[in-house]
């Protein structure tokens, strides 16, 4: 598992531009958001903190689904499946490597957001950072699973709007879920990102965290493990 994590990180380290994009894009978007809401600073302060925790989710989904697809199409996955490497060790290696990247991303975006841009989180910026890493791992595990259904990079990229956007639209970030119709609320409750958003908004707003915060994070962790399990099931030693 460590060997795979080290290998994945080495691969990414060599690709400086990807590292720069992973760290720079969320910060750039946050700054952009700040100026979009220049005349409504209170809206920015309300929307931006949860966003700090949601960027890593979307980016990691995309990066992971492409990385795994490359492993499948380059023949290296077939090679690995003929070697004494267990599937959990392979997926765990990916999770570890991308977890490290997500941590880097979360630290940078939270530092910029909570110091330079003057955001507040009622329960501490560090909690937002930790939730961001958790959300990144959720995005990663969904990306791993989704990559099994893509034959080409074109298809893999399309999974981002197909799987990530509906979750972002319904999670409550753009409109409060209470204002949505009953069926939409039911759909939102089925998406893991909804719970990730709820945990983030509880962490950034005053009030006791309580049992519902624990439940939200438990759902996110559970969904991550289920997606990793499903991802492992799509890795076949024998292929047709």
């Amino acid at each position, binding site marked *: 598992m460590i*060997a*795979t994590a080290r290998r994945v990180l*080495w*691969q990414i380290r060599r690709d400086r531009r990807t590292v720069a994009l992973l760290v720079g894009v969320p910060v750039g978007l946050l700054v952009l958001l700040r100026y979009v809401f220049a005349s409504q600073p209170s809206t920015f302060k309300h929307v931006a903190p949860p966003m700090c925790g949601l960027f890593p989710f979307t980016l990691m989904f995309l990066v992971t689904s492409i990385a795994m697809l490359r492993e499948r199409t380059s*023949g290296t996955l077939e090679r690995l499946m003929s070697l004494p490497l267990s599937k959990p060790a392979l997926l765990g290696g990916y999770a570890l490597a991308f977890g490290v990247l997500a941590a880097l991303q979360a630290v940078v975006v939270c530092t910029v957001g909570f110091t330079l841009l003057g955001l507040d989180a009622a329960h501490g910026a560090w909690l937002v950072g930790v939730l961001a890493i958790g959300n990144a791992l959720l995005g990663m595990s969904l990306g791993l699973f989704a990559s099994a259904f893509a034959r080409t990079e074109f298809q893999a990229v399309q999974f981002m709007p197909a799987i990530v956007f509906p979750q972002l639209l319904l999670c409550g970030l753009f409109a409060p879920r209470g204002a949505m119709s009953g069926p939409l609320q039911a759909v939102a409750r089925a998406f893991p990102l909804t719970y990730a958003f709820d945990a983030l908004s509880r962490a950034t707003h005053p009030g006791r965290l309580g049992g519902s915060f624990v439940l939200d994070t438990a759902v996110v962790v559970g969904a991550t493990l289920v997606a990793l399990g499903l991802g492992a099931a799509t890795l076949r*030693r024998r292929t*047709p």
Partner: protein
Amino acid sequence: MGRRVQARRPTLSAVTTIQIEHLRVVRGGRVVIPDLSLEVAAGRVTGLLGPSGCGKSTLMRSIVGVQVVAGGTVTILGRAAGDPTLRRDVGYVTQAPSVYADLTVTENLRYFASVTGAPPSRIGEVIAQVALQDAAGQVVDSLSGGQRTRVSLATALVHRPHVLVLDEPTIGLDPILRVELWQAFRELAANGVTLLVSSHSMDEAAECDDLLLMRKGAILAATTPAGLRASTGENDLGRAFLAVVRGSEA
């Protein structure tokens, strides 16, 4: 060289490393291998020769246990293909070099060594074995096609497998490198490694101890270079192969 008497009794080899009985493989609704049986002898270089698309890669994938098969048995070292314990004993090189293009030669080998549990000292050894010392620190992406093929081969050698399945390992290599690689294969066989090497070029048949001639998913002949020459009366192995094909169609 071609006059050695042992060449005439290929099926009587002492030990069989790979045994296939009535293998049937269907890919995408097409029967690629209808009913194939063969044996590969231990410690020898066996050439799997046949035109592109005849099913060589599918057969090799079945042997290393990554191919879904429709029927028959494939046994390697007495165990069923795909058995988890075989993963340490079998080395497999796919037709396209399957290594990480964004890592250096050494980094690739370090990864495959740790996955297979090979000691780090093997990394330098296999790099020397495929004559890539000068390129060890280079990113695979920046290497030539022939060098990449050799990196791919090195990653399969790192855990000292008893059986090596090489899918067209010399394709696109210059003649000098080909000779060197065949020399390396001979050395491995001399050390007891069983090699199954596919090629679509009959020039390479002469380098093998045993030959399996394949066409349309079937083995036309299991012979030796000398045996093939003797049975067809052709000195040129390419012509001899054609003679076997004609014989099978007649």
